[in-house]
């Protein structure tokens, strides 16, 4: 177990290194002369001013020196964005509450709802309930997030006035305000994942029901519900939980960009999007590293969790 973890850790570090390198190189390639000094200096700057800025910020040093210094700054927490002038860590920290509230809230909502919907569809497989639920899941998967958000904002916000028109209220400020502002974003973000997960769960349950051990449990005389809960679900939920971990990491790291843009929640995803359009390398690098870190860590955690849940894997 320890060797497995150490190996995963090494792979993690290597992966993060490569990701940071690739992102850095992409933006160095993009900026004129690999040099953001021209952007910083503004339209009316003279070449002398641009040169001064280059020297002051160290843009004239070779690329690998810049890379090392940038990464050192990021890990220090002292990196600040050239575009906005703010400390990157502070900006990310400011955006985290909105993103975490959105992602974690939506994550739990979609997990619970998918389990309900998937189980229901599997129990009533082939019948009317199943068909309706499957169709709804398909629609959920086919709907672009921003379209659904716009529709919700228009009907529930403008016409009926039951949800606010966007913005984020921290829960330290007002718990009811926080909830009220997050209901629509949670719903919007969940719809897509509910569609995906409920169908995966449904097919996994249908596969598990045909296994021998379920037949044995029924033959033993266990009630239908006990069989379902204790045997079928325990097995079927394993792939769902592992997928959930990975998806949650992706959503936290910026997969919620669309939702945050539509509802005007200034979270990490929105920050990432802004940094790309402003060609702000440092902020983007930090956020990408954060996401990749989250994905890799959560991936490793879910694998450990997998081994914990399923003794067969442990014995390998």
């Amino acid at each position, binding site marked *: 177990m320890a060797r497995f973890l150490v190996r995963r850790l090494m792979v993690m570090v290597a992966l993060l290194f490569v990701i940071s390198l690739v992102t850095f190189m992409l933006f160095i390639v993009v900026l004129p002369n690999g040099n953001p000094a021209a952007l910083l200096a503004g339209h009316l700057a003279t070449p002398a001013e641009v040169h001064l800025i280059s020297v002051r910020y160290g843009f004239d040093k070779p690329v690998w020196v810049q890379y090392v210094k940038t990464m050192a700054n990021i890990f220090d927490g002292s990196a600040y964005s050239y575009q906005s002038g703010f400390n990157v860590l502070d900006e990310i920290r400011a955006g985290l509450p909105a993103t975490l509230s959105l992602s974690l809230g939506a994550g739990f909502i979609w997990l619970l709802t998918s389990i309900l919907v998937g189980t229901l569809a599997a129990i009533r497989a082939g019948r009317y309930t199943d068909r309706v639920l499957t169709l709804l899941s398909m629609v959920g998967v086919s709907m672009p997030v921003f379209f659904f958000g716009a*529709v919700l904002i228009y009907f529930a916000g403008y016409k009926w006035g039951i949800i606010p028109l966007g913005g984020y209220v921290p829960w330290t400020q007002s718990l009811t305000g926080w909830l009220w502002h997050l209901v629509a974003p949670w719903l919007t973000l969940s719809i897509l994942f509910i569609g995906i997960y409920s169908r995966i769960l449904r097919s996994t349950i249908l596969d598990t029901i045909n296994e021998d051990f379920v037949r044995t449990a029924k033959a033993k005389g266990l009630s239908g519900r006990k069989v379902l809960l204790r045997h079928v679900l325990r097995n079927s939920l394993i792939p769902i939980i592992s997928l959930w971990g990975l998806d949650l990491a992706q959503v936290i790291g910026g997969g919620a960009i669309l939702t945050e843009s539509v509802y005007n929640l200034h979270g990490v995803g929105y920050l990432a999007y802004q940094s790309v359009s402003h060609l702000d390398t440092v902020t983007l690098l930090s956020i990408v590293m954060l996401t990749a870190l989250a994905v890799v860590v959560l991936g490793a955690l879910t694998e450990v969790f997998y081994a914990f849940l399923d003794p067969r894997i442990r014995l390998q």
Partner: protein
Amino acid sequence: MRYFPTGRGPTALAAETLDETLEIEQDFTLGVGPYKLAWLRLRRNRVSLAFGVLFLLIVVLCLLAPVYSHDIANIGPYTQNITGTVKVGGKVEDIVSLIGIPIGPTWQLHHYFLGADDNGRDVAVRLLYGGRNSLEIGAVATLMTMLLATICGLLAGYFRGLTDGIISRVLDVIWAYPAVLLGIVLGTVLEVHGLGPFHGTTLLSTAIVIGFVYVPYVAKPIRAQVLAMRDREFVDAARQQGLSHVRIMTTEILPNLASTIIVFIPLILANAILTEAGLTFLGAGVQPPNPSWGTMISDGISTIPAAFHNVLIPGIMLVLAVLSVNVFGDGLRDALDPRAKIRLGKE
């Protein structure tokens, strides 16, 4: 033909479970190849076929965009007409009112059938042209993803060792980025600077970006399948016969991958269309004034609540197109592999 059960036959109605259906099929389908079998199963699935037809209809409608534009509506997708007026049911109305509110659907085929957007452009014409763009991008992206993913998966699974190590690590790096973020980064890089021969965001560059982002999603299951097939006897037998590696890959392994590939195509197409809309909404995809369902929705959002039809109409078209691809793809998967041996997932 009398061996094959149809949807109305007594056998299909009598079969209660999937197993019974398959057993009965086995009795009836001696000597029928797996693809013929799959086609028969697909034919029985009325819902999937209906949605498949719907998708074809949408495609045909969008391809006929120039016909509609030149012959029926007499207006192009870029023609702005902010100050013009149009006659609706006897009354003369401004296309875009004095405070900037565009007209809603007039339901008159020959002009502004579905209304106008805030620049006075005809929504119906833009919808069809935009559909052409969105579907084109989706198709090219899907083609690219499937080609690259098949090649990568084949090479990685067949040769294993160092090749597999390198390819898998590269795929992991791509996969570690959230898809939308990667799309935006690549899209912005292409737009601002260009990479190699590609400059600016043409439709092609957007398609390539989207195609690139989904390669790991397809390549990993393909690689897993190739790995499993590699150890089987028929590959050994082929090597014994002296067939070259390339020959083995194309003639022995690739045909077995066909089912998986066919099943993935509608899925990736649906994802590509959705991703294009998302990227365009964030400004990293198709640029205005080029129409695409994504640009229309994002333009329309700025005029909520006064002219919601600008958001609703392209949105509904988008949902219908993606939904029909998804449902048809689902039916295809059920037909090709009713026991769902093809695992689609993020392993």
